[in-house]
């Protein structure tokens, strides 16, 4: 009888502790994710762009998937292919988790509207990973997306032959399935294993949060 009381008491205590713990964690960002995840996700404005297949790429394309975004240009032979290769490594590593792979998309957004047409983007993105999406469009629409994410880019003064270079933010931006700016992997986090483990953790706490909010 005493034993039973202790057992029930113990179970109640454990249950209470677990409940308290999850209550305390509700708004807390896991420690590992500080500096990567935004304190609170940020809504994005409307924009109208075109993907590498000529289809509309607007805010709705972010719905229901985690989107990994990188901003660059195809005339960039060093940082851009290195980062695209890194993003491809992340996707290849996530092939081990088919459920996760189904819920992510990799997007290369060109900040060189003049030179990057959908056709050249197609050859570019698919080379790195078969499902990557290339996105381009007019400057105003690119700007509404980049401004809302804090992405900066600047064209250099053209040389005599008209060629120019572009300096640009080189982080990997993460938009959540609600279409909100959720996290940013700055260059010092650019390691495929690191991004995979952070992302899985992020997905998990997002899932828990969604459940708590009573959404499906």
């Amino acid at each position, binding site marked *: 009888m005493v034993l039973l009381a202790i057992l029930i008491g113990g179970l109640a205590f454990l249950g209470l502790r677990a409940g308290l713990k999850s209550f305390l964690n509700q708004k807390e960002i896991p420690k590992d994710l500080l500096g990567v995840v935004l304190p609170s996700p940020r809504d994005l404005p409307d924009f109208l762009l075109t993907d590498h297949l000529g289809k509309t790429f607007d805010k709705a394309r972010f719905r229901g998937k985690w989107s990994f975004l990188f901003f660059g240009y195809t005339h960039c032979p060093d940082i851009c292919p290195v980062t695209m*290769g890194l993003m491809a490594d992340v996707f290849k590593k996530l092939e081990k988790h088919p459920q996760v792979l189904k819920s992510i998309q990799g997007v290369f957004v060109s900040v060189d509207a003049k030179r990057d047409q959908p056709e050249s983007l197609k050859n570019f993105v698919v080379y790195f990973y078969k499902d990557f999406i290339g996105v381009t469009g007019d400057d105003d629409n690119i700007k509404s997306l980049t401004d809302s994410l804090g992405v900066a880019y600047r064209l250099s003064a053209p040389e005599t032959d008209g060629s120019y270079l572009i300096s640009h933010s080189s982080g990997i931006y993460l938009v959540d399935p609600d279409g909100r700016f959720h996290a940013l992997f700055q*260059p010092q986090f*650019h390691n495929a294993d*690191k991004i995979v483990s952070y992302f899985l953790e992020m997905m998990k706490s997002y899932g828990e949060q969604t459940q708590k909010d009573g959404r499906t």
Partner: protein
Amino acid sequence: MKKFSQLVGLLVGLVALAAYADESVRIINPWVMAAPPTVQTLAAYMDIQNDAKVDMTLVQIQSPKFAKVEIHESTHTHDMAAMVPHKDLPIPSGKKVSLKPGGLHLMLINPQLAIREGDSVPLSLTFNDGIRLDVQAMVKKADGDAAESHQHSPEPMDHHGSHHDMH
């Protein structure tokens, strides 16, 4: 066939290396980062070792496969990546200068024909004292760690990152 051309490229490269091993300046492991065949720019990397008693300067690079070749450096400041062209590249006496992804590179501009993995790209490097080194740079994928080389930026963007660097 691809294997064969790779082998030839390698041999040519080795012969070129051997021929210049006794010279004052030499090129070690030249390579070009593979990219989609449609791109208009590629990047070549290598180590340049100067065993001479005097400082040298790389002043010009040419390749029959490209309209022009420039010396560039990728830089990272406040999360902005940029390429800065250099008009020449000093190689101090007794020093080795490394061109690698995320840093110094030879920017290969406007290929005459599509460049694919396994191709070799002839490069002529001219130094200030008139020495010209001809090398063949193999086109290959970056090693896995190349992707990480640009995370070591000279000025960290924030200190949150520091306690994550324990891999």
